[in-house]
């Protein structure tokens, strides 16, 4: 039998993947001050604005969505009754 293609079954591969990911994040932050910024709004030029905005947006998105679930969630047969 052909060997299964299953790189992410091994925890060390997942760890390696995450490590590369974190390094990328570090690089993106480190090069931030060296970029020539042509901004339309004053806050765009702030150090790491886009990084923090992206992170905050997603955290906010998840927690608001989680909160909305309380009001919006119905069982799958809700409309069939």
């Amino acid at each position, binding site marked *: 039998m052909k060997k299964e*293609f299953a790189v*992410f079954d091994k925890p060390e591969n997942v760890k390696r993947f995450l490590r590369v*990911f974190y390094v990328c994040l570090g690089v993106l932050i480190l090069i931030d001050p060296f970029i020539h910024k*042509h901004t339309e*709004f004053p806050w765009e030029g702030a150090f790491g604005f886009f990084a923090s905005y992206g*992170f905050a947006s997603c955290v906010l*998105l998840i927690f608001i969505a989680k909160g909305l679930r309380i009001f919006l969630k119905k069982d799958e047969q809700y409309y069939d009754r």
Partner: protein
Amino acid sequence: MSQTFFSFGIPPALIFIIGALFIPLLKGKLKSAYMLMLPVLAFLVLVIVPEGSNWIVRIVQYDLVLGKVDRLSRVFGYIFTIISFLAVLYAIKVEDNVQHVAGFMYAGAGLGVTFAGDLFTLYIFWELMAVASTFLILARKTQKAQSAAFRYIMVHIFGGLCLLAGIVIYIQETGSTEIVRLTLCSAGTWLIFIGVAVNAAIPPLHPWLQDAYPEATVTGAVFLSAFTTKSAVYVMARIYPGTELLIWLGALMTAIPIFYAVLENDIRRVLAYSLINQVGFMMCGVGIGSALAINGTVSHAFCHILYKALLFMSAGAVLQMTGKIRCTDLGGLYKTMPLTCLFCIVGAASISAFPMFSGFVSKSMIVSAAAHEKLAIVWLMLQFASAGVFHHAGIKVPFFTFFGHDSGIRAKEPPWNMLLAMGIAAFLCIFIGLYPAPLYKILPYPVHYEPFTAFHIVAQLQLLMFGALAFCLLILSGNYPAEMRAVNLDTDWFYRKGAKWIYVAADKALNGVNNACDRLFVKGVVGAAIRFFKDAPLKLTILLSRPFSPLEEGELKQRRFDEMISSMFTTGTIPIGVSAAAAIGVFVMLFFLL
């Protein structure tokens, strides 16, 4: 006229619509070749047809223009024919002729809307699009699909009627059927706007989309993802550019669906929500209305059609090969469907506007246009939505389908034609992302925009990657909302549940009125009248004849006399003398009265 009508070939819409009628007559390879040839033919016609009004048919005092060609309509025509080719290639092994014919009719109607030069032509193709697309949902042949298709067509009939009413009022007011730029200033223009807004899925008129598309057939959803909303984007861009209301509706439209997409379990429904989100960017661009914004809108529609179709194709491939489409049932498919997984990731990267993928070179134009106009809140909302779309369409869809927990499913790759269609779409996503010049060249206005500046690339990467970091940390810490088998309430609640209540209320109220009327008039007044006309002569006769009773006094005798009279009445055996006396009595009465 017939000489000029076909001088640039057959209108692309008619190539599709008339061409579709011959599909059931063909079989095997010939049928496949024929179906693939139609979009190619339409594309070639689009390349050669000159700008201006072509294919004009005069009916009564109105000119129906089937081919108003300018830079705006041509670019939509190109992408509609390209995606038709890919969707047909993807669906080529489907045995069901209904789906093929409906698909071509639908795509043809989309092309008809795009090149319509007058409001009548627009309306005819608009309705054809609604009807044909319904069959792509019905063809799934499940109870759920049938109910969804019913709701879908009802909503589109509502939208179509708004459009028709608007068109009629507008023509009454202006006497012109030409499609021109309008402002929201009268009942007619508002109704046209609402009619188009239904198809563009602008909240709160959006829920038909996430209700119906996930219930469509595997191949039907690919067609659906391309035409209805994007032809509405085109009509908005043609009729209502620079309408401020659209900026805000568009911005809301980018933000609201992403919350639902996070909670949603059905992969194709997640994609439907992200479709609404992406059309929101386009609506925002139409609302801003500057050359950069309109260029952004059109190029984003172009790219979006490709990557959204690609995402629906990969989700459809998963559905076809596994029979499952919920996040809770899937996972670990990268092991046996690596190509589908790869194509899905390309689509996900494109929709997320990752640098080097197509969404980046188009969406950024709209966001930049918002910045140029100093629309700070809108800009922040669009950036929020950009991070959000990466989160749910970019990460969630591939992660829960192909990675995540191993569901144990070991499905094979889909057939070669599906892989090829996905491959071509993925190639185009990357090609446009790396080399946007050909796309920029066909946009409505000259492009002076450079997407690949260092700041722009780093800013976008920071936004996306740190959004991904949030996803990672929340998943690893167990704070990510678990996927659940559930429905999430949306504005369709008003007609899905609300309609039941309206039905019950109408039943109670109207049937109550009906019953009351029945009691009062039918049984009451009419009954009394019947009794009166039936019994009055008898009673009158008895009353008048009593003094002449031949029998002696006494209650019993009296009753016998009454019975005798009434039996005479019922059997019609009244002695002639009595009738004659009564008649004379009437005459005497009349004599004295007159």
